[in-house]
């Protein structure tokens, strides 16, 4: 118990003094996950919108597949990206393996189905509510997409946050394609795994506390924004 207490004390000390190693790891984690989030959202939102509004043969099957991909195991994504980026893989010549770029690619693939599937549901619900009105006003399906994205902005923000939560917290994919190299590809989750296995609990705990705090802060901010918007009637 006292060892655990000591580890907590050391962890808070690292956070309070903004330890350089700690901050570097946190910074890289945020950079990788946020870039992945932006890329995934840029692809997933239009895809989700299209799937929510379009009607075509086989659409149900695509929706089922997309929903299933939400549960994609990170290690599988990591393995696939590893095979593609490894020296003998189709993109091996790019030399991206064990770089932050590889980690961004893996996380993008991991969270794209989550954001797309959740936004598909949001858009489908909105479309059933707005379809007649927008058609009556003369809006085409294509023109309706940006309108619905704007109307559903707060629900979509939740979908995006779910993607961010998945990205920042996953360990399998970034470990495989990043290699957990100190000062290069070490992020919070891989560092926690490593430091725990080495018995360096204070750094692992410090990172763990920051990881949880980050998740809480992001979600609290989103909630505040949503509450403010609801109060304003938006």
């Amino acid at each position, binding site marked *: 118990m006292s060892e655990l207490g000591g580890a907590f004390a050391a962890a808070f000390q690292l956070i309070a003094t903004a330890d350089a190693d700690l901050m570097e790891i946190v910074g890289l984690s945020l950079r990788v996950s946020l870039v992945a989030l932006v890329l995934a959202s840029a692809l997933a939102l239009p895809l989700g919108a299209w799937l929510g509004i379009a009607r075509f043969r086989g659409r149900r099957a695509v929706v089922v597949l997309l929903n299933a991909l939400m549960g994609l195991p990170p290690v599988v994504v990591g393995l696939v990206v590893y095979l593609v980026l490894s020296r003998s893989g189709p993109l091996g010549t790019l030399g991206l393996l064990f770089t932050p770029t590889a980690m961004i690619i893996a996380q993008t693939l991991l969270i794209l189905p989550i954001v797309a599937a959740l936004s598909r549901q949001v858009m489908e619900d909105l479309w059933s*509510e*707005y379809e*007649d*009105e927008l*058609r*009556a*006003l*003369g*809006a085409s399906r294509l*023109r309706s997409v940006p*309108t619905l994205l704007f*109307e559903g902005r707060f629900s979509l923000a939740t979908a995006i946050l779910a993607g961010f939560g998945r990205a920042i917290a996953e360990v399998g994919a970034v470990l495989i394609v990043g290699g957990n190299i100190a000062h290069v590809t070490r992020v919070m989750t891989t560092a926690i795994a490593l430091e725990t296995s080495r018995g360096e609990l204070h750094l692992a705990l410090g990172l763990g506390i920051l990881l949880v705090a980050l998740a809480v802060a992001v979600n609290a901010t989103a909630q505040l924004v949503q509450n403010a918007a609801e109060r*304003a*009637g*938006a």
Partner: protein
Amino acid sequence: MPERGGLPIRLEGVRVERGRRTLVHDLTLRLEAGPLSVLLGPNGAGKSVLLRLLAGLLQPSAGTLEPARRPGEGSAIVLQRPVLLRRSVLANVEYALRLRGIDGPERDQRVRRVLEATGLLGFEQRPARRLSVGEQQRLAIARAWALEPDLVLLDEPAAPLDPPSTRALEEAVRRLHEEGRKVVLATHDLGQARRLADEILFIHEGRVLEQAGSGEFFEGPKSAEARAFLAGQLPE
């Protein structure tokens, strides 16, 4: 040949099916440009279906509708439960105008005019979904009005309203009509039909049983169904 705004409108033997259900069976009627037409009938008679046909939101499964219409083409419809955007009053009207490529001073002028006509001037920055039900209905009318359609279709616009809100709404409907627009309003409210209608189209179970001047209809309905409806008898 159709006149301005695709009027008159002619429906002959129109049937609308949705899946295995037949929504209206055999609609035959003619709507002229002039009178304020009220579609009268009980709930489920087919009034909303007819309005959606006229708006181009539904296509006939069989029969003839002339002239054929695409949604928003010279017409505007205020749905029974209008969907307002999660934006301000002003942004709701501006959105509709922007869809038609109307911008700049012309847009501002139209917005001001319709908000004034519907008693919503001063409400511009209010969130549309925070308005009262009556104000929301008037905003939906303002949004349709701003498009300056020749044909305005109103689906039970006063159904959820209290008497003062109904009065304000009916005033807006009268002004719309006085501007020379064709107004077709669906209602099951006899009082409203008496107050507003120049002509009545009585609809029962997906068929137009009577089309007559308002006075003529209320003084001597020809069909047994219309007489029962006017007498306030509940359907079986």
